[in-house]
């Protein structure tokens, strides 16, 4: 049986680049909003570019919130990217205050403009690994560079969930977060050249377990 990976389609952002990155790894992922397909898969990716409130609204309209919570109950591997990471938190403060999926306890806030040069952060920044043994970063040297585009970042309450830290201006933020079988990166691995591809490879390998 080929590995069954789904990318959740909720009309937020560039799903195709993740699809193509997986295809490069010989994985034919499904881009879908179909609850059954999502629940039946070996691993799920929650992508996203855009605003927190809009994204939660789309997930709600498509009735995907209970589906994602079911994935957590089933202990299915779930990988959030960028906005997909934000949504995993309890609350987001992008253009208002919004409830998140509350899978990772904590909040998503905007960079303090007195502590950083420009908002959004656009470009390559390094990630300092906090847990070398984590499966997601195997084969990747510590402090490797990844591609970021964001104005907001998440702060997990439980610091043990921090797998990677990144410094922008005077702010150090959590750029890789993980809890049980849920993993997420603030950066875009699909746009981060070979080490980004390695992150997807590691996720795919995890899904095979």
């Amino acid at each position, binding site marked *: 049986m080929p590995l069954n990976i789904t990318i959740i389609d909720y009309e937020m952002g*560039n799903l*195709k*680049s993740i699809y*193509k*990155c997986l*295809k*490069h790894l010989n994985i034919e992922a499904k881009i879908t909003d179909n609850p059954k397909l999502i629940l039946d898969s070996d691993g799920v990716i929650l992508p996203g*570019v*855009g605003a927190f409130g809009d994204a939660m609204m789309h997930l709600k309209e498509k009735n995907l919130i209970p589906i994602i919570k079911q994935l957590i109950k089933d202990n299915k591997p779930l990988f959030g990217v960028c906005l997909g990471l934000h949504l995993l938190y309890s609350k987001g403060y992008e253009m208002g205050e919004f409830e998140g999926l509350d899978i990772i306890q904590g909040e998503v806030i905007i960079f303090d403009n007195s502590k950083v040069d*420009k908002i*959004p*952060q*656009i*470009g*390559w*920044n*390094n990630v300092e690994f906090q847990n070398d043994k984590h499966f997601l970063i195997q084969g990747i040297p510590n*402090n490797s*560079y990844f*591609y*970021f*585009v964001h104005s907001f970042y998440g702060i997990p309450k439980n610091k043990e969930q921090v797998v990677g830290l990144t*410094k*922008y*201006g005077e702010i150090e933020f959590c750029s890789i977060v993980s809890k049980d079988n849920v993993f997420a990166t603030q950066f*875009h691995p*699909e*746009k*981060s*050249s*070979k080490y*980004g*591809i390695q992150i997807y490879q590691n996720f795919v390998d995890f899904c095979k377990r």
Partner: protein
Amino acid sequence: MPLTKRIIPCLDVTEGRVVKGTRFINLRDAGDAVELGAFYDDQGADELVFLDITASSDKRKILIELVERTGEQVFIPFTVGGGLRTVKDIKEILRAGADKISLNTAAVKNPKLISEGAKIFGAQCIVTAIDAKRVYVEAPEYAKDKVIIKIDNDRYCWWEVYIHGGRTPTGKDAILWGEEATNLGSGEILLTSMDKDGTRDGYDLELTKAFSERLNVPIIASGGAGNPQHIIDAFSLGKADAALAASIFHYNEYPIKIVKQECKKSGISMRL
């Protein structure tokens, strides 16, 4: 180790093939665009820019195919520009897999295209490309409605925006236009010096610096790169966030890796 400065090879394309213009004329073929893009990714390029110089809407299909194919082989961000005139054009290119689009002539003629694009797709994917050319004046008071910069040898100048691939002067001040584009929601400026483009004797550092100091978005310096020192100067003296170059990379005269190593040696933050 903070956010790095970016090195961006630019691929001028027509019908899926790369060409490089010298001062916007004398085109010569330099290879398959996707293959070259993947090669640059492998070499350590931080981003790519594809500029479609045919820029005619009947050839749009070929451009979209190029974007689709690029996404299959290139795993760094890439920007696509050239002849995009409407929100529909922008949508097609982004849907095909580009991370950003750049607007030039169309944005000058219809600045609302920037705000509409930014509102729908996000400021981070709308790049305004500005082709700027120096206009020297004897003294600042001779051009009161322009941003005059004092340059070397006690000379003064402002920069005029050109459109239609550098053929048509507009009378518009480039710095003021840059500020307007940013206010409308453009997330980045791709700034080309027409005086320097194709000369290979360095970027227009005064132009780059003037933009970097005034605008609150990343500035991509373009036009004039002939060796690694020019790129170092664009970052250290021109205060650019990214440096774009074409011919010095295309013929592997200065491989990207070498350029990045030279930059790092000079104390510039680089992804190696």
